[in-house]
């Protein structure tokens, strides 16, 4: 199987032993774009390149970064850039790598973005559990300040900006941008209602704020260095550039790959020798998650679909945070569904009743099926509760809640129950999975959890 190739844009230093140091970064072409931006481009010109690149945000929603940057109201200061390094959507693993292996690339992207946005300060919010990433970023930031790449009069220009490195303390919901802002203000990480609290208008300290994902900003040095047009020519016109995908689950060689966006297919990622090299034990795909735990699941008929945002959206799911999880024919779909629902039940911030009560209820119903106490009416009950969180159980979800976390818990249920209803019925009737399927709790009863 031949696969489309492209340049390594953001993973280019992953094999460079000292790529995370200032010396290693500069030796491999680092900070050239920043110098170019502050010495020979206006903020508007930098913004125009990012717009021309048509890079879609890599944090989950896929919103074009250049367009988002344009939402800042003119003349309102101070304004801030917040970098979302909270990576915690199940299945997602790429921002941590970017922070650990190439921290200066991210810092360069941040400073260039601040220049384009006329932002005075950036807040780099790293997930609390990522000690090594925090360490690497602290080291890199200290070096970058000492080398005048951050701070006052950057590269001798009249542009100055500070970056404050900080981290959370364990809460998935803080990845949602308004919750992240709350957390940065020292509050519980509970989302704000949009409208009126669109960060670009009323964000951190009620000032205009742009929130971008780590991977999104890591691409900025390339875009400014090579030009937005160059970036746009990579991948597909509807999904530009290279993009990182983490492929986990039942594949021979799970891994994180930077691939041409929009043209690579799911099958290529699963089967090509340069990627995952096939399904484990010569098996076959029963279902897969295309974009993180919040996404609707895909099935074998979707394998030849390209990783292209509009195509995947139209098929009823999302590429989300680039998290692909493969499940082979032995997968216990009731247990898989339960585990994801349990995640959302545990991580609900509790602000909205349908989410707080609904996710907990869904989890309990699934758990009692696994424990052998399922009731005949339970499948209907799952759908009823799902309806109360996400009316119509459609995609994209409608929500009765403040943020999309609640409706996300409905995705695994809608996916698994609709497709594998007989597995749920079998659990209800016999208290165990259908033949040929392995319970993940072989030596460990789910009742424990």
């Amino acid at each position, binding site marked *: 199987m031949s696969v489309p190739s492209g340049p390594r844009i953001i993973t280019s230093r992953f094999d460079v032993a000292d790529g995370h140091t200032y010396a290693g970064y500069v030796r491999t072409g680092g900070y050239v774009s920043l110098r170019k931006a502050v010495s020979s481009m206006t903020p508007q010109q930098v913004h125009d390149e990012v717009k021309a690149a048509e890079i879609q945000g890599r944090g989950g929603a896929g919103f074009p970064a250049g367009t988002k940057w344009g939402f800042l109201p003119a003349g309102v200061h101070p304004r801030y850039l917040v970098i979302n390094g909270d990576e915690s959507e199940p299945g997602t693993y790429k921002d941590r790598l970017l922070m650990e292996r190439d921290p200066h690339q991210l810092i360069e992207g941040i400073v260039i973005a601040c220049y384009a946005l006329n932002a005075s300060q950036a807040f780099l919010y790293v997930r609390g559990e990522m000690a090594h990433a925090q360490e690497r970023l602290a080291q890199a930031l200290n070096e970058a300040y000492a080398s005048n790449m951050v701070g006052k009069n950057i590269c001798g220009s009249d542009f100055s900006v500070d970056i404050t490195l900080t981290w959370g303390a364990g809460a998935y919901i803080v990845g949602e941008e308004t919750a992240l802002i709350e957390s940065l203000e020292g509050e519980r990480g509970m989302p704000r209602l949009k409208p009126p609290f669109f960060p670009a208008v009323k964000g951190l300290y009620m000032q205009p704020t742009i929130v971008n994902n780590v991977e999104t900003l890591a691409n900025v040095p390339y875009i400014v260095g090579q030009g937005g047009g160059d970036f746009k020519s990579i991948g597909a016109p509807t999904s530009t550039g290279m993009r990182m995908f983490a492929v986990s689950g039942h594949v021979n060689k799970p891994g994180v790959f930077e691939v041409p966006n929009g043209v690579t297919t799911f099958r290529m990622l699963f089967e090509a020798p340069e990627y995952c090299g096939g399904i484990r034990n010569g098996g076959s795909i029963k279902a897969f998650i295309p974009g993180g735990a919040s996404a609707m699941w895909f099935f074998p008929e979707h394998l030849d679909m390209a990783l292209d945002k509009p195509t995947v959206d139209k098929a009823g799911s999302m590429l989300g945070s680039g998290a692909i999880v493969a499940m082979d024919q032995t997968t216990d779909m009731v247990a898989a569904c339960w585990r994801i629902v349990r995640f959302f039940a545990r991580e609900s911030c509790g602000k909205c009743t349908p989410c707080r009560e609904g996710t907990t209820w869904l989890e309990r119903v699934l758990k009692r099926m696994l424990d052998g106490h399922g009731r005949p009416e339970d499948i209907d009950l799952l759908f009823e509760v799902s309806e109360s969180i996400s009316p119509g159980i459609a995609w994209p979800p409608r929500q009765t809640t403040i943020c999309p976390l609640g409706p996300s818990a409905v995705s695994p249920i809608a996916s698994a129950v609709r497709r594998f209803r007989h597995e749920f019925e079998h659990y209800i009737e016999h208290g165990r999975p259908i033949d040929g399927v392995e319970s993940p709790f072989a030596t460990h009863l789910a009742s424990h*959890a």
Partner: protein
Amino acid sequence: MSRLSEERVATAKEIIGRFPRRKSALIPLLHLAQEQDGYVAQDAMVHIAELLDLAPAEVYGTASFYEMFKFHPVGKYCINICTNISCQLVGAWNLLHHAEERLGIKSGGTTQDGLFTIEDVECIAACTEAPALQVNYRYRYKVTPESFDALINDLESGKLTGEVPPHGTLASVRQTTTAAWSNRGVEEQAQVDAR
């Protein structure tokens, strides 16, 4: 246990100086407290409230929202085993079960000698290296029952002391820079639009 040490108060003040508003330093300061004592002690929260001009109830109100903060002593080594989807698919529950048997405690418990706490946790962003765990937030990948036992032995014998600091310590390097420019006020920042 205790209020923040003098040295940590100095660090706290540096951290506070990097934010436009004091309360933003709350979570970083709670981490300082947890680093000092291995958990967030009540006296430390009162001290943090004083440093940030907050009521202790506000400090606890924020702190208790976040999973990482512990309010009573936990093991010197907290072992967080991921059981989320990618790890569940390749044997995470068997690993957790093994860990529970090996240490004689259930998930959420601490061994009697105060050395180990185990917890089953949500995705730790190592899904392609499943099953994965963290010990005091340092990763171990593709963990088997055998490599788990070896980890416990190494922690018990002190072989990993350098690599795995006691619970509460996250990054061993801190940002040392001061906010050079941005916190000085809105007026200067308005000038940037002129650029």
